């Protein structure tokens, strides 16, 4: 038996869906959500579902979890009054979105409300280029002034969204505090709090004494012995891959700045020992491999595709 389990944690109900891979059997179970801590309903519902359908926990091969709780909070505007600080010239991006109207023909349709009101969206001088180069360095004095303005306007949370912040981790205002190597004890947690205060003091020049501190991510890893997977080598099929060829296609190759006619191979039909000279394409359901000119691909006994670049 191999059961896949999916849980949807909603505002009212938590739904559990179980799917048995071999037989295709599907079963569903439903419990009331626990708003204060949604994980309680997930754990409770899961335990009930396993008992109800006679599933052993050891037969569960996959567990997936999604939630509409956060989405609901957003669309019902139940979060804290929020301010937005962004790059100079772009405070309206949040509102403009993709500039499309909500309905093509309905002149009375409205856009959904914007998460942050226009007067609470403020700009500071700062600009990164597309390659991560700094064109205008962040004006930290302006940031402090902006934060004060937002605080005076009554916001309780501030989102900082700069262009290209994905290129520069420093833009995210994260503080990393290293975890000591020894076993975790209550003192370790206190140590983390001190480390955070020290890092905060160093970067921002002050410590917010009365603010509660939240440990956001905590991960435990367990190590044990599981049965070794049984993967057997397949039979040798010789170097000639032509049995897997199913056509040709013109492919634009940057290396030669031209279209080149490339053979197409079906990954499913390639055999161990097959050898393909580039340029060529190997197709499979979830990926396409381009073997560039000069490169060689060899299929190993476990049907891995080994690429050797020139």
């Amino acid at each position, binding site marked *: 038996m191999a059961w896949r389990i999916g849980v949807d944690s909603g505002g009212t109900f938590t739904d559990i869906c179980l799917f048995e891979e071999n037989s295709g059997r599907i079963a569903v179970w439903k419990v009331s959500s626990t708003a204060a801590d949604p994980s309680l309903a997930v754990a409770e519902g899961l335990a009930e579902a396993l008992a109800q359908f006679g599933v052993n926990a050891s037969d569960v091969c996959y567990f997936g979890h999604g939630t509409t709780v956060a989405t609901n909070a957003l669309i019902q505007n139940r979060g804290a009054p929020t301010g937005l600080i962004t790059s100079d010239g*772009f405070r*309206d991006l949040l509102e403009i979105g993709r*500039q499309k109207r909500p309905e*093509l023909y309905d002149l*009375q349709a409205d856009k959904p409300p914007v998460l942050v009101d226009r*007067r609470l969206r403020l700009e500071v001088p700062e600009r990164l280029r*597309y390659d991560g180069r700094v064109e205008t360095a962040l004006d930290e004095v302006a940031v402090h002034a902006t934060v004060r303005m937002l605080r005076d306007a009554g916001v309780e949370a501030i989102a900082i969204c700069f*262009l290209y912040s994905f290129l520069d981790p420093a833009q995210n205002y994260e503080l990393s505090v290293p975890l000591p190597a020894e076993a975790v004890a209550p003192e370790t947690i206190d140590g983390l709090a001190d480390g955070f205060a020290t890092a905060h003091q160093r970067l921002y020049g002050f410590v917010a004494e009365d603010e509660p501190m939240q440990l956001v991510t905590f991960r435990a890893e367990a190590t044990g012995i599981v049965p070794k997977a049984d993967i057997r080598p397949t039979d040798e099929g010789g170097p000639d891959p032509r049995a897997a060829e199913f056509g040709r296609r013109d492919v634009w190759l940057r290396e030669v700045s031209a279209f080149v006619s490339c053979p197409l191979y079906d990954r499913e039909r390639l055999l161990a020992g097959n050898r393909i000279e580039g340029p060529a394409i190997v197709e499979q359901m979830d990926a396409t491999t381009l073997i560039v000119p000069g490169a060689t691909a060899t299929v190993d006994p476990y049907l891995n595709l080994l690429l050797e670049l020139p």
Partner: protein
Amino acid sequence: MSAVPVNRIDPITVEVIGSALSSIVEEMGEALVRASFSTNIKERRDCSTALFDRHGATLCQAEHIPMHLGSFIGIIPEILKRHPVETMRPGDVFIGNDAYAGGGTHLPDIVLGEPIFVDERIVAWAVNTAHHADFADRGHAHIYQEGLRIPPIRLYRAGELQQDVQELILLNCQVPRERLSDLRAQMAANRLGVQRVQALCRKYGTDTVLTVGEALQDYAERKMRAGIATLPDGTYRFADTYDSPELGRALDVSVEITIEGSEMRLHFDSPPQVRAGINMIYTALLSSVYYAVKAVVDPTIPPNSGLARPITVTAPLGTVMNATHPAAVNGRTSTCQRAADLVIGALAQAAPERCIAAGNGSCTTASFAGIDPQDGHLWVYLETIGGGSGARASKDGLDGVHVHMTNTSNLPVEALEVEYPLTVLCYELVDGSAGPGRFRGGMGLRRAYRAEAECQLRLDGSRLFTPPWGLNGGHPGRRGAFRFGDGVEPFVNGSGRLRAGETVEIITPGAGGYGASSKRDPTVVERRRDGAAVD
């Protein structure tokens, strides 16, 4: 006629198959967007998909861009005119773009149409159009300057690519690599539509599907007639002006709408066609009228050809709004926007609560073209920028959106700068652009660019000279403008050059307000004080 009489199909089957047709055209659209290569299609979604019946009547159009209906209603009749149905084979794909012989409305919108065969007969057509950001940096005195004119010819014959045809087309394009990939995405989208319709016919029977197609068109006609009948009979006239940077002046345009029972007649007057790319052909006028009448009368009418049956559209041949060969038509969308404004302005006298004040009334366009110094290849980047949408009878207008005939997305700042040697300096709503009123108009947009390498730039738009009007005492919104940074040589008719480091700022028009400002709820004014035009 189909074997199954229309009145023998139950309404539930009609609804189920009608919804299936809608989901097929939407799925074709997603396939086209996801498989495409150029930013104008993969990000800006400047494309549309549709299914047509055997006779060339629209069965269903995806909710993308109303303007593209003009290309759709033209293409199948043009194909059928040139190619006998008996010569068509499964896997034939026709390509066309010409405004006068190709079923298109301007040359960059390349249309691909594929007949859908079931049991060796054509039951419908899968059609899509994609705006290829090409044919840039051209003249617009007549259509021969605007790009390659393609009549409806076979790009594929029984599933086999006509290499010669493709090579001829690609040689005439400035960015052939993008064109080829985008054409293949268009192929894939139609192929998906063909398979889905064939599956639908297998499931419900071909005759049933064909009969439902007719029933859906009849239903759209009934809904349109019922909607028109709710409007008071009478003749309604409305006049406006149309301006363009290509003309440097405003033209007088007007409409006269007559409502009689469940039918509507519209007659448009405009000056003789001009030597500029702002003329629109009859199918473009039709798509503008169908859009505006549907939006006002009943937005829920299914988007098929049945809705057109109670509507008659006329305009003198050889005028800006009903141009003839060889008038240039590249920038026709802004003119079509004005046609939609005219219809809504006139119908506001018959149904003020359903109509809205004038929106930005433009398809504000920036078309950049240059040579990549790294590999010597040409690059072309086209984008269109939204603006204000008109105030409504009971609420403010929408800010910074595309209105009426167009509905493309923007290209996000980061995606743009990665792809082209351009930097976006700001992108924001324009304070003071909204027309005041009891309900204010929508705000226009400001988008400023800096060129990082020399490029040619063409700017297009409208409502640069005359502002978007308000309704029922509402004030006009602010006009659009193009502002150039230091050192930029003066642009001529909207075209010019930017050197590295030079900047240009595009300000799109806001929109008109609705009702007298004195009636505005003071608390609302306070909350949205940023938006109201207080100059």
